[in-house]
């Protein structure tokens, strides 16, 4: 018995390679969906915060990314927009990245059609504006001064849902989907710290560790990190075979495979050590 473990401890790494390849290929070929389970994590915090807002709340959704990070951030955008629509919140879309405005438009207009929402009543896309943090500070005094018109040049005064909104004080939540700078950090420092507006967000897996510190200090209400964060939100909103959930399947299988290798390695190590000790 112990001999098996000894041999396993010195497993030819090519066997590991084959198993990793299979762990990735089989889920892709079979379209396997591993049910996602969301624990007590920042993605659930964001979901619950949005869920608890009174219906009709004004939420800024800032699309601060470009096509290169779409695989991680677009599923988040779609899940978040869906949730906001389902809870009858009003979405004020904008972008700190030039190409973000179009990506946001895609997410909002497609879901608006299928969920029976109307542009200018339930959502608006104000478009891209330069300036990053400086621009956000100015939103604190007057949003209209920064965005006299929306992305399609419709004047602010003619957009019904914006009447009664003057500055960030009239906003109940900001969600920034951010691929870097300017993005979540600018929103936290300028809108969160200065004007006390709750900030949530979604980001790529690479930048998540840096932003996790804002959760520890409670400067953010929740965060979606990478593909897992996107899959979490899809699960919580109830999208059963969302893009991110499907993308997570090979990830889950391969992670489990690697963890099993680590466990086998350690069992082998300890059986060997015991044998060595007895000698």
């Amino acid at each position, binding site marked *: 018995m112990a001999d098996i473990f000894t041999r396993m401890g010195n*497993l030819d*790494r090519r066997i*590991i*390679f084959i198993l*990793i*390849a299979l762990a*990735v290929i089989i889920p892709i070929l079979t379209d396997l969906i*591993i*049910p*996602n*389970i*969301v*624990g*007590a*994590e*920042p993605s659930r915090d964001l979901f619950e915060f949005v869920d608890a807002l009174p219906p009709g709340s004004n939420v800024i959704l800032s699309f601060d990314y470009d096509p290169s990070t779409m695989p991680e951030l677009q599923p988040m955008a779609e899940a978040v927009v869906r949730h906001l629509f389902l809870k009858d919140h009003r979405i004020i879309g904008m972008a700190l990245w030039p190409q973000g405005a179009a990506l946001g438009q895609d997410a909002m207009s497609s879901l608006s059609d299928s969920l029976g929402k109307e542009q200018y009543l339930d959502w608006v896309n104000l478009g891209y504006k330069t300036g990053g943090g400086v621009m956000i500070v100015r939103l604190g005094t007057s949003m209209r001064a920064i965005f006299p018109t929306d992305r399609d040049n419709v004047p602010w005064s003619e957009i019904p849902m914006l009447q009664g909104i003057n500055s960030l004080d009239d906003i109940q939540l900001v969600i920034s989907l951010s691929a870097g700078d300017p993005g979540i950090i600018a929103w936290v420092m300028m809108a969160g710290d200065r004007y006390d507006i709750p900030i949530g967000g979604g980001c790529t897996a690479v930048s*998540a*560790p*840096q932003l*996790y*510190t804002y*959760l*520890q200090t409670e400067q953010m209400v929740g965060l979606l990190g990478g593909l*897992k964060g996107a899959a979490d939100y899809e699960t919580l909103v109830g999208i059963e075979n969302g893009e991110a959930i499907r993308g*997570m399947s090979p*990830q*889950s299988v*391969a*992670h*489990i*495979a*690697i*963890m099993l*290798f*680590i466990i*086998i*390695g*350690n069992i082998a*190590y*300890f059986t060997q050590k015991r044998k060595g000790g007895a000698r």
Partner: protein
Amino acid sequence: MRLIIPLAITFTSGMIMILNFFIPHQPFALLGENLQEWYMIVASGAIFLGSANLLHVHFRKTRLKLKNWKYSPVTIVGFLVMIVLGLIYGVTENLPFDYLFMNMVAPMGATMFSLLAFFVASAAFRAFRASNWRATLLLTSAFLVMLGQVPIGAMIWDKIPLAKVWLMAIPNTAGQRAVMIGAAMGVVATSLRMIFGIERSYLGGAD
């Protein structure tokens, strides 16, 4: 003695870069800007040195029929094809040079990059064994984070994703910061030794 001029050039260019960072006034602004561009030109121009070496090595291998010499012509042909197509067609999209880059060089790069998926697994299997307390810490924190990355973690205990967040936000940040601040001091000291000519072995022996 022959090192004095190179060392003077090192000192001057190093000081220009530093002064340019703190002084916006002319002439430092202009000098700093130009120098950065010049040094890019010099570094790029040097690529011919490497190319000549690459060709030399593989021609020599082929000529002397050294071990694996049969593959050397592949390198030479690959190199020359890219150069010739690049010079004829330029780097414009959808022309032959770009086509070969997009369909061969880029996929090869992506494939080498993706080998990492296999290597993280084999490295984890071999290295993460609880042989001493440091290795145990390495293993435990890696394992917890991996659990937190996939649904199975929350299935075992719903706080495991939180453990991942904490490990990444606190110990990971602390460790990274310590490494970064320490390394920065190493960089500052080494740079100073370069600029002031205290360390000069990189110039080779020339007395």
